[in-house]
């Protein structure tokens, strides 16, 4: 009988394997000798049998291996930096799930018991609600939209309001941030009313997950959406050049313009794929800095290789959170070092502190440490890029807050306040005032967050910074049940179920597509209900020449300052390898030199 080891050993015989692919090309004897970090449960990518997964160290890489009795061995990169993995792991903790879960079965058949069950360990941090599966684009890699002839999923406003209320009734912590998504959500004819309903239901933060194209082409819609309550556009942005970002490169100038006029913040969302756009990470950050008046964050999403694909292609395209972080460090020549990044549950220290002090539930980002990471950048008045870790002892801050939480246990209200005061005074010692941005009093900002602990404090903090995030969704190959049971990005469905992102999208056949089909209308029936509708008319047609000749296009891409080319940031450009039609490569470097001159003049 085959042990499944043969095909792995076979792969090991390949000649001249590049360094980054070597972990895939070892013999099982070699692999089994590697140090084991932890065990988890996972699935067989072929037959979905629940099997044991072993997370192990292979040089600088953290790998996951699993064995299915029917389909043999599977190896996949889990995390491309062992030291960073161990650092992030230190911030992991178990949060609280739902006090009113939908399923009382302890999730013994996890991940096929979702809906959400009592085993889940994190409340809804960001709720996704799909309002349509129609889209004006037809991207080759996307499986989120209805292709020609497929049923249309477009819930009514009444249905959507019911979903919103369901999310708000979660206990003990109701969802407070919502992302309205699709398809392309702006194709829902009642999108403005949907946003109003979200605000009425009580969501503080309303994001629109959009290509932005409909807003760029129709700025009035952006104004209406802002008035209705949209706080942020969560916008796909896969690169600065048209090669890396064929989806909305040409419309981006119009979208930024519309968002500026409507006062809507933007989160740029690049999906990072090796061999496709991984060379533009630094340039994308530069683009965000160049539009920091309107861009609040760049949230990189290392690609989730959902569905079957050839092994070789998967190995070549695979990138994990530390892989992207290291590329950013490399492309920005150390201006944004890998040490500046912390795992998302790091901020749990802040919510624990506030809860222990006030006795009130706070938003709790207790997700798995391997799911996300982030850092803050400050763009100072002299255009210097300052990562938060340059002037704040971030590790010390977490230790200080955790120590205060431990001391508060069992104490009365006054004693807790005294402990908190002492901790808050200690924060000043963790801030290097000589290195902090001249335009920011970080101690005051942090004090405000910890004492006011509301979204407005956080909002003020974000206005002066650029948040860089990483969110790596799982796929069949990297699947780790420990991760999914801590997921806080949930999809709320019309049948009342709430599903973690990585069950909803990794097993669409039993969750996303299945439930949406139940609540869909067949295309022929949809046509009868909407006689003026036809599939092709939904699609956006681009006039590239017209868009490239638009003054806004030149203003946005041609006037970009290359911040990393400034001496204050190391003086090495990030835009010199980016090719944009009609924009000279040296132009952005020249703009950087001009910016230096302007700053000098200001100084005088």
């Amino acid at each position, binding site marked *: 009988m085959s042990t499944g080891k043969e095909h792995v050993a076979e792969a090991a015989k390949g000649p001249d394997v590049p360094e980054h692919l070597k972990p895939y090309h070892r013999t099982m004897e070699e692999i089994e000798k590697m140090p084991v970090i932890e065990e988890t449960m996972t699935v067989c990518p072929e*037959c*979905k*049998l*629940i*099997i044991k997964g072993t997370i192990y160290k292979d040089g600088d890489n953290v790998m996951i291996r699993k064995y299915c009795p029917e389909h043999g061995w599977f190896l996949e990169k889990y995390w491309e930096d062992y030291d960073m993995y161990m650092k992030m792991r230190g911030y992991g903790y178990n949060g*609280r799930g739902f*006090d*009113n*879960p*939908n*399923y*009382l*079965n302890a999730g*013994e*058949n*996890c991940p*096929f*018991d979702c*809906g959400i069950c*009592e085993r889940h360990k994190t409340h809804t941090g960001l709720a996704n609600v799909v309002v349509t599966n129609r889209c004006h684009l037809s991207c080759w890699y996307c499986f989120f939209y209805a292709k020609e002839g497929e049923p249309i999923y477009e*819930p*009514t406003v*009444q*249905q959507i309001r*019911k979903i919103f*209320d*369901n999310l708000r*009734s979660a*206990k*003990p912590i109701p969802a407070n941030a919502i992302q309205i998504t699709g398809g392309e959500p702006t194709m829902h004819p009642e999108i403005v009313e949907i946003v109003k309903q979200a605000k009425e239901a009580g969501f503080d933060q309303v994001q629109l997950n959009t290509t932005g194209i409909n807003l760029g082409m129709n700025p009035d819609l952006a104004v209406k959406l802002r008035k209705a309550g949209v706080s942020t556009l969560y916008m796909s942005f896969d690169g600065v050049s048209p090669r890396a970002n064929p989806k909305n490169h040409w419309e981006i100038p119009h979208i930024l313009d519309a968002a500026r006029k409507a006062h809507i913040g933007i989160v740029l969302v690049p999906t990072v794929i090796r061999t496709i756009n991984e060379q533009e990470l630094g340039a994308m950050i530069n683009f965000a800095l160049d539009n920091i008046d309107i861009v609040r964050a760049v949230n990189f999403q290392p690609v989730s290789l959902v569905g079957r694909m050839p092994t070789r292609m998967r190995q070549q395209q695979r990138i994990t959170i530390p892989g992207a972080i290291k590329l950013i460090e490399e492309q920005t020549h150390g201006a944004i070092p890998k040490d500046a990044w912390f795992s998302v549950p790091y901020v749990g220290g802040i*919510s*624990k502190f506030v*809860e*222990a*002090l*006030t*006795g*009130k*539930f*706070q938003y709790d980002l207790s997700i798995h440490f391997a799911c996300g990471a982030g850092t803050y950048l400050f763009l100072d008045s002299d255009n210097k890029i300052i990562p938060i870790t340059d002037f704040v002892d971030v590790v010390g801050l977490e230790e200080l807050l955790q120590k205060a*939480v431990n001391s*508060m*246990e069992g104490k009365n209200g006054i004693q*807790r306040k005294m402990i908190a005061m002492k901790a808050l005074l200690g924060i000043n010692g963790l801030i290097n005032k000589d290195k902090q941005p001249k335009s920011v009093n970080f101690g005051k900002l942090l004090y405000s967050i910890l004492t006011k602990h509301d979204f407005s404090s956080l909002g003020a903090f974000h206005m002066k910074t650029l948040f860089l995030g990483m969110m790596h969704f799982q796929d069949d190959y990297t699947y780790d049940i420990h991760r999914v049971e801590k997921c806080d990005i949930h999809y709320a469905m*019309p*049948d*009342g*179920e709430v599903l973690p992102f990585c069950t909803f999208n990794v*097993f669409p*056949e*039993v969750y996303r597509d*299945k439930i949406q*089909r*139940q*609540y869909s209308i067949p295309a022929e029936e949809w046509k009868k209900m909407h006689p003026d509708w036809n599939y092709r008319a939904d699609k956006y047609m681009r006039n590239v020449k017209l868009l490239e000749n638009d003054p806004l296009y030149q203003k946005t891409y041609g006037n970009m300052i290359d911040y990393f080319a400034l001496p204050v940031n190391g003086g090495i450009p990030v835009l010199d390898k980016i090719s944009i039609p009609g924009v000279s490569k040296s132009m952005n470097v020249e703009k950087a030199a001009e910016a230096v001159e302007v700053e000098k003049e200001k100084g005088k």
Partner: protein
Amino acid sequence: MTTENASGVAKADGASAEQSTSAINIPYGMIKRIEFNNLKKEELIDIPHCARLQYRLMLHDAIIKAKVEFVKRRISVIYNHPEAENKKPKISRDELIEFLKKEGINVDASNIAERDYDYVKEFYSYAFFPPEIRHSAPYGWTREEYAKIQEKRNRKEKAKKGMLIFGGK
């Protein structure tokens, strides 16, 4: 009154029947729930195989929810039977049994329990109003401590309301 959710666990009824099913396009009305009991452990194999069987059952569009319980040696399925009044895909009881047979599960007719299942009342309404099964406390507080501060807060809140009723500030 109690209902059973898809997992087959009896729970308190969270809400009354949905107001108008047509207004919110609820796809099912009266469907069926079937239970196959006393299954052979050697056919179910173990929990991972039960989970995969549950996944395979769920691949059928006509199966709304399935639960395969290794410990209880039970499979329960909520499904859209051929006589149900809706246009969604259907599956018959015999087809279900045939499918299980192909998966290596032989069911005994005497161990089958089937009943009508009201999707709106038992599934849909329940999902929107699940009851609380526990009471968490904020970090740094025990449940007892938290219950006390909650009580205090409620008293303050009541007093505030009282003052408002009597015109106080």
